């Protein structure tokens, strides 16, 4: 089989899962006793069917089958760096798991040329009772390195991690940051021809992340083939010239990463997380007030295309008042990607409420709390309303947009739900369960 200088060739790769079958309800004691007696047989059949797909037809609409990947085909040339993007459940992780041999595909095939390593997690196999040194060797061999290889790279790894002093201390005494550093240091010294990376940059402090990114940039210049899955769009566009967008298990688009990421972020509307009008004459508004910029940022002032669902989001509106003596109401429209208005916040800052404004530059900021918006694209429209007399001074629909990402760490309102979770908002509520053991059925 000749595949030229192709490193990875994926042809019609498909993978399906069978989700749990419906539980039957029993309306009588006899029936439930009978079904209890029958249950070992039924459980056996159910367990068997979980991995038996002989009867599955790709085109049929079988409700308990989920196609995590469906007829995915693409080629990656040797030395190419390709980013894989898509919302949760689009099939990114499944794709990497199949390519790294963790799970088998249901159909299609992939041909890989060269030694392949996958990093779906850093620190796999780390054991708290072992010292840093022992964990380097353990983790390294798990990742496919040989002991001799680790011997020669050991000093470099320890040096990269920056925790020389604690290398002979059991890892259970490490802070979580130190653990990540050490784990990443091992991973960064992998030397395969093809590397599959999944989201591992989501851990560690910002400075260390930067160090890892630059290490990866170095790696990518050595002609290695890399497949990179990430929600970090900045890192992705920086590292990967090419991106593949997966949606619902199929390849939606494949091409230059800037274009793919942009289309992913706003599905064609061309809205970004920051918008500025550098020229006053071209800015929206009238002779009283002009909108100069709107930006989406985190608490630290970082402008973000995608935000963690748990984090508060700050939306700054910068505007110039050119003529004094008007009462202004600053407001936003917050919409989802279906165009549904989620809510319309109005500036309630008491300092400027019902007060005629002097001329000058203003920045009004609305804080949207964390654990409030639902996952997906959020579009913000900006507007300024005049009071006494009542009329609209300016309104710019879809001024900025950002993506809310739920990383599924288990501490979000998703809890342990991993599939599509509908809903306009996703607040994290207080839940409480009271339990009385002896009162069931009374």
């Amino acid at each position, binding site marked *: 089989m000749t595949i030229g200088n192709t490193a990875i060739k994926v042809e019609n790769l498909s993978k399906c899962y069978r989700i749990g079958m419906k539980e039957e309800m029993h309306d009588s004691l006899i029936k439930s006793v009978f079904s209890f007696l029958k249950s070992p047989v039924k459980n056996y059949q159910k367990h068997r069917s979980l991995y038996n797909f002989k009867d599955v037809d790709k085109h049929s609409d079988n409700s308990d089958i989920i196609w995590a990947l469906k007829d995915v085909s693409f080629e990656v040339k040797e030395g190419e760096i390709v980013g894989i993007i898509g919302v949760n459940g689009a099939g990114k992780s499944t794709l990497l798991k199949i390519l790294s041999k963790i799970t088998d595909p249901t159909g299609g095939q*992939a041909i890989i040329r060269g030694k392949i390593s996958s990093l779906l997690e850093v620190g796999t196999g780390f054991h708290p009772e072992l010292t840093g040194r022992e964990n380097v060797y353990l983790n390294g061999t798990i990742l496919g390195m040989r002991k001799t290889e680790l011997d020669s790279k050991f000093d470099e790894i320890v040096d990269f991690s920056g925790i020389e002093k604690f290398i002979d201390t059991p890892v259970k005494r490490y802070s979580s940051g130190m653990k990540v550093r050490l784990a990443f240091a091992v991973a960064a010294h992998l030397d395969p021809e093809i590397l599959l990376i999944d989201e591992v940059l989501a851990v560690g402090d910002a400075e260390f992340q930067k160090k890892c990114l630059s290490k990866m940039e170095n790696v990518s210049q050595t002609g290695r083939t890399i497949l990179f899955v990430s929600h970090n769009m900045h890192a992705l566009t920086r590292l990967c010239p090419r991106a593949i967008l997966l949606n619902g298990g199929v390849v939606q688009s494949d091409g230059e990463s800037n274009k793919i990421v942009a289309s992913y972020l706003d599905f064609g509307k061309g809205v970004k997380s920051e918008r500025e009008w550098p020229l006053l004459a071209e800015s929206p508004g009238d002779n009283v007030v002009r909108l100069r910029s709107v930006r989406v940022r985190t608490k630290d002032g970082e402008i973000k295309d995608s935000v963690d669902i748990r984090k508060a989001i700050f939306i700054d509106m910068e505007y110039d008042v050119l003529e004094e003596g008007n009462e202004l109401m600053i407001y936003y429209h917050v919409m989802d990607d279906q165009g549904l208005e989620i809510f319309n916040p109005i500036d309630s800052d008491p300092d400027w409420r019902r007060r005629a404004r002097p001329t000058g530059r203003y920045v009004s900021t609305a804080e949207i709390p964390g654990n409030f918006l639902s996952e997906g694209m959020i579009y913000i429209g900006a507007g300024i309303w005049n009071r006494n007399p009542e009329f609209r001074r300016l309104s710019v629909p879809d001024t900025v947009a950002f993506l809310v990402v739920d990383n599924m760490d288990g501490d979000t309102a998703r809890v342990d739900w991993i599939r599509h979770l509908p809903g306009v908002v996703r607040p994290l509520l207080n839940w409480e369960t009271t339990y009385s053991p002896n009162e069931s059925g009374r």
Partner: protein
Amino acid sequence: MDSKKNNSDKLNSNNDNLTIIKPNTGWQVINFRELLEYRDLFFFLAWRDIKALYAQTVLGFSWAILKPLVQIIVFTIIFGKVAKVSTEGIPYFLFSSVAIIPWTYMSQTMSESSESLITQQSMLGKIYIPRLIFPIIPALSRIVDFSISLILIFIVMIYYRVMPTWNLLLTPLFFLLMASVPVAIGLWLSSLAIRFRDIRHAMPFAIQMLIYSAPIVYSASTIPEKYRILYSLNPIVGVIEGYRACILGLPIPWPFIWPGIISAVILLVSGALYFRRMERVVVDVI
């Protein structure tokens, strides 16, 4: 370093490093070359288990002696003194010591090996390593325990003035048999346990029963002649009888050993094949 230089040649001449991923159906053979490539991992995973086993315990590796010792004492009192089980004249303490130490190794390895895929499931979903490693590791890491507990046997031998004989040269054979039995069972049960967690509940109690299936607390000579082959198909019988004869310098009771070796080999090969068949769905079912 050479490999890097040859990289371009290799890729042009192609084919030698091609991985083809496609749906696997049916039976897979064992990839020994791959296992060999991961040989360092065997060592480090076993090392991890050994180090973690008695971490933060006061007695540490003394547990390796204490656990069988307590069992030997209890059995000596119950079966030796109270029930007066026949041991063909061998002091009961000596008789059971040489059986319980290999049995402890086998039962511990067996239960760890059977649960190996469940306990390592987080790793299974994150990285590919030959899964066959997992049920084999306990057989390696428990060797340390076993070796330490051999001290107990030496002490008992000295106390009862048992002279070493040439029979001791046969111990490697029985060691091999002793290690392969729990691995064979572990291969079967670990792959079954992924789907049927019942195994987990059945295991401790099955092991309690299993101790009576082999001549550990009683002598094999009490088994009627006509059931001997059937009885000896249980490979644990061969291991215990073999060790006992080796250490005590008795004639090796081959009729009790051959059937066990055959069934152990069958169990091991079939277990490995079944494991290979099941490992491809492990991650999806776990």
